């Protein structure tokens, strides 16, 4: 199967590559089927590409690479729809966004994926996690040490 994405050009995929978000993603309810694509230019990133809408893609990262002590606090019931074999097999990703001159991570509403089961869900975790955690600045800080 093929999808002509606006960002990445044509992409070939197999049905088993699809990760289904049965509830959609907040604000994008019609996008239920997604592909997780590696970013060839930046290995710390991946992209969730909508299968339903070729122009919709979300940049995602593994939050612990940027926030070492990040923890997702959830009720177990939130994970039930993912049909995980065990909680450890859940993949946690957060969505990258841009706010002004900063690149931000949404730590409040991570994506939890069951990759082997092809299922995903955006959850809202407990506690005071920021929706826009500043991970990087678009204007480089000229402060590199030797």
């Amino acid at each position: 199967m093929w999808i002509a994405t606006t960002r990445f050009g044509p992409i070939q995929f197999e049905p088993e590559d699809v990760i289904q978000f049965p509830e959609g993603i907040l604000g994008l309810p019609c996008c239920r089927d997604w592909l997780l694509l590696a970013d060839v230019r930046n290995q710390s990133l991946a992209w969730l590409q909508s299968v339903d809408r070729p122009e919709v893609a979300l940049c995602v990262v593994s939050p612990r690479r940027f926030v070492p002590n990040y923890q997702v606090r959830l009720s177990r019931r939130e994970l039930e729809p993912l049909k995980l074999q065990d909680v450890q097999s859940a993949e946690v990703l957060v969505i990258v966004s841009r706010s002004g001159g900063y690149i931000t991570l949404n730590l409040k509403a991570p994506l939890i994926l069951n990759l082997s089961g092809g299922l995903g869900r955006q959850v809202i975790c407990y506690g005071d996690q920021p929706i826009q955690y500043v991970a990087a600045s678009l204007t480089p800080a000229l402060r590199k040490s030797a």
Partner: protein
Amino acid sequence: MLVLSRQRNESIIIGDNILVTVVDIRGDKVRLGIEAPSEIPVHRKEVYEAIKQENLRAAQLDPADTHPLTRAETSEPPGPSNASPS
């Protein structure tokens, strides 16, 4: 909008399987207990709206703008710089 009066410990049921119970009332604050199937997300509306807006903003991200993330990962996130590798 349907408006129903309820007292403490009284409930309303939505469909066959969503139960909303008034758990406590103190001043102008009401605590609600919600029982719903796990596939039905339940959120505070203002948080729901904020995340919806953030997702829509994220969907506009230009791939060219993501390059600072490599630097952010290899060095420490914003804050005092230090050279401790993780």
